[in-house]
């Protein structure tokens, strides 16, 4: 995918579509397009968070390892979702594993370089932080609803 293709893709993607053209160009300069196979590990819990991913298609499991129960999938994410935001916050360590469940196409961002660039482009940094916060809010909401155990409740007498 050429830099122009990347920029065009970003402009159409819901995560980036509201960014001005110059910001899209900056984002595109830190991105590359990649395909991932089932079982590929995108992030590993406890490791340096140096990349983040914006999914174009496919499915990725967010996993945590439980000493007694093994690998537990907390949620799955897909088209349009972002995988990884620990790169934005100290200590820059991934909190969970991210494992490819189905063949996945994604934009991969050099998160370390992008974070450094935000020092020169604070407005872009703010815009991306807000967009990531929206994703965090969506995940937090989903986690809270899952905690409600809705399907375990019934009004049947």
């Amino acid at each position, binding site marked *: 995918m050429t830099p122009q293709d990347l920029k065009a893709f970003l402009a159409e993607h819901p995560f980036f579509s509201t960014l001005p053209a110059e910001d899209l160009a900056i984002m595109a300069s830190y991105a590359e397009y990649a395909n991932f196979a089932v079982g590929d590990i995108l992030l590993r819990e406890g490791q340096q968070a140096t990349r983040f991913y914006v999914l174009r298609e496919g499915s990725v499991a967010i996993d945590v390892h439980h000493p007694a129960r093994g690998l537990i999938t907390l949620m799955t994410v897909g088209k349009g979702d972002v995988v990884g935001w620990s790169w934005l916050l100290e200590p820059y360590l991934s909190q969970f594993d991210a494992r490819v469940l189905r063949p996945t196409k994604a934009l991969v961002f050099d998160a370390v370089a992008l974070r450094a660039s935000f020092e020169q482009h604070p407005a872009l940094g703010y815009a991306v932080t807000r967009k990531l916060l929206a994703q965090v809010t969506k995940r937090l909401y989903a986690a809270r609803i899952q905690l409600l155990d*809705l399907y375990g409740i019934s009004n049947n007498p």
Partner: protein
Amino acid sequence: MGASPAIRPMTPRPFRIEAVRPETPNVFTWTLRPTQEDGPLVFQPGQFNMLSIFGVGEVPISVSGDAEQSEIWVHTIRSVGTVTQVMETKKAGEIVGVRGPFGNTWPLQAAEGCDVVLAVGGLGLAPMRPTIYHVLHHRERYKRVYLLYGARTPKDILYPDELKAWSESGALDIRTTVDVGMDGWDGEVGLVTDLISDIRIDPYHSIAMVCGPEIMMHFTAKALFHRRIAPARIFLSMERSMRCGTGWCGHCQLGPTFLCKDGPVYDYPSIQPWLHKREL
């Protein structure tokens, strides 16, 4: 000959439990056959019966069988309360009471020629199953048909063999997600609302039918709005404490409506003012 339910709606008729099928933990399916000849058992998808254990009590349970099978009632029941816990102990051959069917039906005629989204959560698949059978019997009448199903865990997925068969037949596009993943589950984990963003529909010619816990239906409707499906084309099946089934007792009143008589199926604009009303 016994009296028809239309003539004596408050009188339970005796039915024999023909089969008991365990489904998931605490959930089982009864096949019921009348003990006396009383004509065909006719119902519309979405309707429910009042099932009773004599001397214990009576509960509303949706019909979950095929409307084209007119000799039996099929009900899937979760054991959670006094009556349903006794029901779980009943064996094939025992006699129970049945009144009904009551309530209205899903908008199956209005959905003809449209894309159809069936969004269900938990035990909501049971009331939706007659609709699925109807769609399968008349598949040519509908365009794309999606079944979006959210369950608690992989072990709580209802009717897994049928889901597999329906999916393999290509007649339905089935997407399943669970709240909690477990070993061996390689499907989606998350909310049923997350499944809505990825389906291909013509929103202006789509009908959505939603069945599950009220809060799930509320947020599913919102996700469907985001896909530009008009509120009037979204239908919910409401569950409240139905008692008489005829609108006489008022137990299931929600705002100006009686769920047992006017519902349980409503288009979203009709029921929206009463969703999330804490006092109701």
